């Protein structure tokens, strides 16, 4: 069974530029999560989708971050414009459903904002 795929693996941009990350969840998984992991900390949930609807985006900085999950499968996370403090690893995870289901994580995208 293929795992959660993410691309790119690494990205370096200058502040005020825009960037987009892509995630392909495990086939059949209805729920998709985006986490931000700043160096030295645990992951923090940014946004959660159930199929193509948003379940929780309370911690997403909506003035600069946006995410979509068209057709309830792949998802993209965008940052525009990027700030220095956005440097982090962005993890995508998926699960069959929501509560009680194990979340499976992708390898992450490491973003460095200069």
């Amino acid at each position, binding site marked *: 069974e293929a795992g959660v795929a993410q691309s790119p693996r690494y990205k370096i941009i200058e502040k005020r530029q825009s960037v987009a990350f892509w995630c392909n969840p495990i086939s059949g998984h209805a729920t998709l999560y985006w986490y931000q992991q700043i160096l030295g900390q645990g992951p923090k949930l940014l946004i959660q989708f*159930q199929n193509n609807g948003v379940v929780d985006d309370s911690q997403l900085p909506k003035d600069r971050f946006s995410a979509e999950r068209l057709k309830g499968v792949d998802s993209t996370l965008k940052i525009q414009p990027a700030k220095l403090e956005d440097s982090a690893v962005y993890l995508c995870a998926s699960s069959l459903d929501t509560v009680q289901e194990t979340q499976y*994580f992708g390898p992450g995208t*490491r973003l460095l904002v200069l």
Partner: protein
Amino acid sequence: AQTVTQSQPEMSVQEAETVTLSCTYDTSENNYYLFWYKQPPSRQMILVIRQEAYKQQNATENRFSVNFQKAAKSFSLKISDSQLGDTAMYFCAFEDGGSQGNLIFGKGTKLSVKP
């Protein structure tokens, strides 16, 4: 708000020995789930073990076991017969039973297994 605390930023253990990683959490909920995730240097987060709060029996997965003390809000991970491949960051995580899947992570413990 729920919080998860891992008080050991770094730990080391000799190969084949046993090590215990600590985790405490704070919640007023009665229905929740606890997890230990492993994140090797390749950065892929992998589930090690999970525990349902309503279960009194401690979860076990091969060399990994937990000591779940609900009253003390403590959830420690014991790794027996440590192997070099166990070297990784270990994150304790909490999920409120009514939160629809929002995992709250601790800051992690960096475990080094030495030959």
